[in-house]
């Protein structure tokens, strides 16, 4: 079975500084990987995905993620954080044996201070 680990419950960063939110995965076969963001009392919004190709994936709101097959990681990054980026971030992996179901990590709270 596939799984995702987000080792940090919370990441704190100052506005303007680069940010990284970590994610590692475990799947059999090639992974389909996703990042979603959740604002308070809201549903999940899609940020970006890795299916195949370039290991650096660019997504919404200036976010990008780096796929590293040897380290089984898919870290989310942004060169310059904004206070408005403060939210809960989820990494997810697609179930290759089934249909479009996603397995999510437990989430990482990103807090960007002014």
């Amino acid at each position: 079975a596939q799984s995702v680990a987000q080792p940090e419950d919370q990441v704190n960063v100052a506005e303007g500084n680069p940010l990284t939110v970590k994610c590692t995965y475990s799947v059999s076969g090639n992974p389909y990987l996703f990042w979603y963001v959740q604002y308070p009392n809201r549903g999940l919004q899609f940020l970006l995905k890795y299916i195949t190709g370039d290991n650096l994936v660019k997504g919404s709101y200036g976010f990008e993620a780096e796929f590293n097959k040897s380290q089984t990681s898919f870290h989310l990054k942004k060169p310059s954080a904004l206070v408005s980026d403060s939210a809960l971030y989820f990494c997810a992996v697609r179930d290759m044996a089934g249909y479009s179901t996603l397995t999510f990590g437990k989430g990482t709270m990103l807090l960007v201070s002014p």
Partner: protein
Amino acid sequence: DAGVTQSPTHLIKTRGQQVTLRCSPKSGHDTVSWYQQALGQGPQFIFQYYEEEERQRGNFPDRFSGHQFPNYSSELNVNALLLGDSALYLCASSPEGNTKTGELFFGEGSRLTVL
């Protein structure tokens, strides 16, 4: 173009009661999935509906059941509610032709509190 819509947004029930949550998928989407997000946790897959049939199910008891209608909208039913069923219930839709590589589109959820 309306996204995924869910109702109700909030509801309170007591133990043993039954609840029905509703979801309308994004226009053009025919596959609907339901997820449960407990406080402080990531969403967990409950089941997925396509062509009015449940075609995949997560590790949830039979108290959780669902339905999909010809217009692709869906309902989630939970019987004999337990305190542990308190959570945010998320509906997600996708087009069948994009099930493997495409992203899911989520509604804002229904917050269920069981007292």
